[in-house]
């Protein structure tokens, strides 16, 4: 197991090199004069020269790349052109709402998707199966942000529990403060969770159904039924447990999709997350923030995939740690 994780980590090196190179090209090679990008927009010739010297833009590209890599490894992603704050601090601040949004949506998707998939697989070709699968197809066909808008129109408002938009952070000052902040947090987050989670729920429902149907044809399921076990017990304890493995493999990609799909949901609900920050940065031509955020998300995806791979190997003894 240790060597498996180590090997996976070593495999990551070329991937990380590729990602950082892409980020470097986007930042320093494509713009023409990167000094004009890094300096404030009103900069005169002298400030541009200073910026060039500070970032070593007069040196060869390979040296620049290595310097960029060195700074990135130390957590120095540059300074935002708009707010002049360090990019790393901005990203860290904006990442929490996005992560809360994505994890909540994932939880919602797992509960809804797996339930629908199990109901479908338990009675294949029944009307319930047809209804679940049609809803799943409709779920992948909806523009998520439109769903968010319609939910907001239908459910949110000044008199409703659901807040129209915005974000309320959790506070951990004391039990009273926490309860109050949690209520505000939920009133802002439930609709975004549903909005963002629907597509993933639909994907998981289809996957659970096909995986479970295949498992339910196995001999040990017939044995379990022959023993006289209750049907739900057969399906959940003997069937679903074995059908979960392919579902675990897509969870990594799902979380990555949710973290980046959050851009649209954050826009609809005005949540100050990472996706919103990227878009505002693009709008304001703030390339240090754009590149930093892309780099940060890429690293997150790589880490999530690694965790899922390890989890998969740990869950299924048949997977060899090679």
């Amino acid at each position, binding site marked *: 197991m240790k060597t498996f994780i180590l090997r996976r980590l070593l495999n990551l090196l070329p*991937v990380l090199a*590729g990602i950082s190179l892409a980020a470097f090209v*986007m930042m320093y090679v*494509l*713009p023409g004069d990167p000094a004009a990008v890094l300096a404030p927009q009103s900069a005169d010739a002298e400030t541009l020269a200073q910026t060039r010297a500070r970032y070593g833009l007069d040196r060869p590209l390979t040296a620049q790349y290595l310097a960029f890599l060195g700074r990135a490894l130390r957590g120095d992603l540059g300074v935002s052109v708009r707010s002049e704050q360090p990019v790393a601090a901005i990203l860290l601040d904006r990442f929490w709402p996005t992560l809360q949004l994505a994890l909540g949506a994932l939880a919602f998707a797992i509960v809804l998707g797996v339930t629908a998939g199990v109901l479908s697989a338990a009675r294949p070709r029944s009307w319930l199966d047809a209804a679940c699968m049609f809803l799943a*197809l*409709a779920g*992948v*066909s*909806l*523009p998520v*942000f*439109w*769903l968010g*808008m*319609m939910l*907001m*129109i239908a459910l949110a*408002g000044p008199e409703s529990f659901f807040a*129209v938009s915005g974000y309320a952070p959790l506070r951990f000052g004391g039990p009273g403060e926490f309860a109050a902040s949690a209520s505000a947090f939920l009133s802002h987050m439930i609709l975004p969770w549903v909005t963002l989670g629907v*597509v993933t729920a639909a*994907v998981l429902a289809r996957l659970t159904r096909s995986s479970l149907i295949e498992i339910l044809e196995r001999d040990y399921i017939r044995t379990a039924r022959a023993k006289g076990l209750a049907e739900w017990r057969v399906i959940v304890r003997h069937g679903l447990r074995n059908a979960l493995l392919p579902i675990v493999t897509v969870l990594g*990609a799902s979380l*990555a*999709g949710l*973290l*980046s*799909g959050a*851009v*649209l949901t954050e*826009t*609809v609900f005005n949540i100050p997350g990472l996706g919103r920050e*990227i*878009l505002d940065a*693009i*709008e304001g031509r703030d390339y240090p923030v*754009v590149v930093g955020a*892309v780099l940060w*998300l*890429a690293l997150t*995806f790589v880490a999530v995939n690694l965790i899922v791979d390890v989890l998969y190997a740990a869950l299924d003894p048949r997977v060899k740690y090679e």
Partner: protein
Amino acid sequence: MNRPEPRPAHSDRPADAGTAETRSPHGAGPARMAWRRFRRSRMGLAGGVIVAVMLLAALLAPWLAPYPYDEPIMDSFGEGPCAAHWMGVDQNARDVMSRVLYGARVSLQVALAATAVAVALGVAAGVTAGYFGRWVDEAIMRAADAFSAFPGILLAIAITAAFRTRSLTVVFVALGLVGWSTLARIVRSQVLVLREEDFVTAAVALGARPARVVFRHLLPNCLGPVIVTATLLMAGNILGEAGLSFLGIGVEPPRPSWGLMLAEARSKMMLNWWMCAFPGLAIALTVLGFNLLGDGLRDALDPRTKT
């Protein structure tokens, strides 16, 4: 943006059109057999009808639209759906139904162009990788891996940002770059199998040049999976265009695209629900149509894979 899953490598190949399995007693060709199978799929047919209606709406928008899409109607500001305006009137007093019809043109044009880019790039890359093998294959497939490692929407945003200008071209090129890797993988695996077939060996032995082998023997046999994937990509690209336009980095006003209409409706939506409801329904219905059509075509063109 959901990319269609890569599929296993096999489909209807005329290579085995002569066997009892795929040849009907009446001597029908593979295309006719596929049509016969497709006709039996109710969902696929429904998808085909939806797609046909949407394409017609886009083509005939100038004749179907009851009002101009870009001019205010003087006496009806912010009105809901009524007899004169079935889908209501937007914040600039423009008829929403006319804009939805014209929006079909822009949305479908962008999605078609994006799909064309993805198909051209993906087929070229897949054939090259599969036919030449070795380091060419390795290089192309690692590039495909890199492109598919990122979720579509983020990749599209990053590519749009890298262009540093905004235009319709940027939008469909960005979406095309998101979609090509799926096609490349499918075409490559298809070519890898076909390359070993006797009819290809025979063509090479007869002195056919690589270009002839590729265009005459390999590509026609990849057509089925490419059509299926391209149909599913259309669905993804319509969603993609809508998403990018909604975020303000896609189609620019005053051209109405469905995503752009949703973006414009956002500030007034709590009061004017119809401005938001109808463009979104148009997107959902069209995407559903392409998804159903794609699934139906998959079953019809490839009887051996059952979904």
